[in-house]
């Protein structure tokens, strides 16, 4: 299956992925509604986008009491709006913190890989996000460990 591969060292923090994502998902340029989130590291000198890994367990999907989360044709765990009752169980079940909830619509939402043409990957000017046929992985762990060492040491 094709997944979003993150290359954190290439991210400049321009937030174009967030804009593209929110536009694709909601029709509005509203980064607050983006399901890919750019996080700062090293006191805002490096950045990396973070989103759903489409994990094998799919904790969000198995937790949903009404079966509102299914697997789409491209393999993404996808919320069916007409089934979702807004109970938030998926937001607490996903152990990666990549489920979102919209108080306005009272629905959960998440990365659905834009049906196979992810807007974030397309929008990223530095190819820090690519859409590839690889095993999903912890794309940010090593990068974040390295880029936080100084901040952590200073704090001590």
């Amino acid at each position, binding site marked *: 299956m094709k997944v979003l591969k993150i290359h954190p060292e290439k991210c400049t923090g321009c937030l174009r992925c967030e804009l593209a994502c929110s536009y694709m998902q909601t029709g509005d340029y509203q980064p*607050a509604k983006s399901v890919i*989130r750019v*996080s700062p*590291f090293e006191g805002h000198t490096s950045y*990396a986008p*973070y989103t759903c*890994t489409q*994990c*094998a*367990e*799919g904790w969000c*999907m*198995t*937790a*949903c*009491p*009404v*079966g509102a*989360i*299914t*697997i789409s044709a491209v393999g993404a*765990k996808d919320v069916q709006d007409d*089934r979702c*009752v*807004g*109970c*938030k*169980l998926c*937001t*607490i*079940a*996903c*152990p*990666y*913190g*990549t*489920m*979102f*909830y919209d*108080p306005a619509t*009272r629905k959960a939402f998440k990365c659905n890989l834009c049906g196979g043409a992810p807007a974030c990957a397309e929008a990223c000017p530095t190819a820090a996000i690519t859409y590839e046929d690889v095993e*999903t*992985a*912890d794309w*940010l*762990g*090593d990068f*974040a*460990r390295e*880029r*936080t060492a100084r901040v*952590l*040491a200073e*704090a*001590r």
Partner: protein
Amino acid sequence: MARRHLIIGGGTAGMNAIRTIREEESERSTITLVSAEKPYSRMVLPYYLDRSIAESHVFTATARVLADWGTTTQLGKRATALDTKANVCTLDDGTKVEYDDCLIATGSSAVRAPVPGADGPGVHSFWTLDQARGVLAQIQPGSHVVMVGAGFIAFTILNSILSLGAKLTIVEVAPRILPRMIDDTGAGLVQTWLEQNGVAVRTGAKLTRIDDVKGRRRLKMAAGGDLVADVVIMATGIRTNLDWLKGSDVKINQGVVVDDHLRSSVPNVYAAGDVAEGRDLISQANAVHAIEPTAQEHGRIVGANMAGKDVRYRGSLIINIVEVCHLDVASFGAWDDAKAEAANGVKPDRPAYRKLLWRGDRLTGAIILGPSSDIWTSNDVGMLKGLVQSGVSLGPWKAHLKKNPFDIKPAFIATKTTSSLLPETILGRPSKAPGESPVAV
């Protein structure tokens, strides 16, 4: 291998077991479902109450789906006895069902405070679909609803009651609200929030009787003045539905004691969900976790084992989330562990609150509270669950989190929690979508 499976109770655990049997088995077996009620999800009832979904939305399998699943059903009937020597279950109409293995998944029932008038007219429980229908029929805009009990279940329907235009008073005998979900500080913030949103809260308030006065209910309180209500909802606790097992060989403590395969003391009898006393992920001791995710995981593990697989359960994690008037309140794991090391942070004006608990350098419990419009709250909710579930070593991040309990994300990412979580699955394989099972729901 067991050819005839009997599932007793068609709630969350029972239905997850049936679906998983069909997903996992290599040869088609016989499944019989005995259930006092039709299969539905109790935790969806609050959304039926606020009329945001139709009644049909609460059901987890229709007659047609059950037939497609090849399930023989005995609906509207109760199991009354289990003969584990003869492998026969007796139902309340005298029917006898033979089995090779069976699952006890009869869930819990609501219990009312033992005061005179508790069973009178206008006094309701909110646990079953029937009871939900009863409450829905009674609440009108402007009705005064008194909620007796301020536990988690009471809180799951507060928003619904308010959105029906009712006036709401909560009375709780304990000195504080949500005694089994969050700590004192969190409870104080939630209570203030409720009061700011027009909900009256009376804690330390003992109800002594309920009288019917001209079609309204008068709640006599031990102190502080009586209350008059149109509708009274008793959310005063639940009790496991295990009375029918009296006289069987199945060992019962707080619930049916089960091993790491969800087997009871009788090897071909499993138990799951609210009735099961299984392993707690954090303490590794046995406990009853009467929550939806535990019922789901238990049910799936039992289904796989009934289908002949050998699946061990790692234990269940207590996770709860509830939203009241756009404030998210959640807790995880051993949030009330008095022996744990703890740190907290409060932003009273938002309001926002975090409490983190450690054993060594592993996070073993957490409480989080914050505005639901704050996207970071929902992301942190998930990451805290991930940290507690994975039990990763936080190393130097522990000191960081102690000082900055709101700064969860860098700690989560830099400790490579994702790496430790990714290989984890409940059944030892990727999950199937609800609609990908042999027959779609």
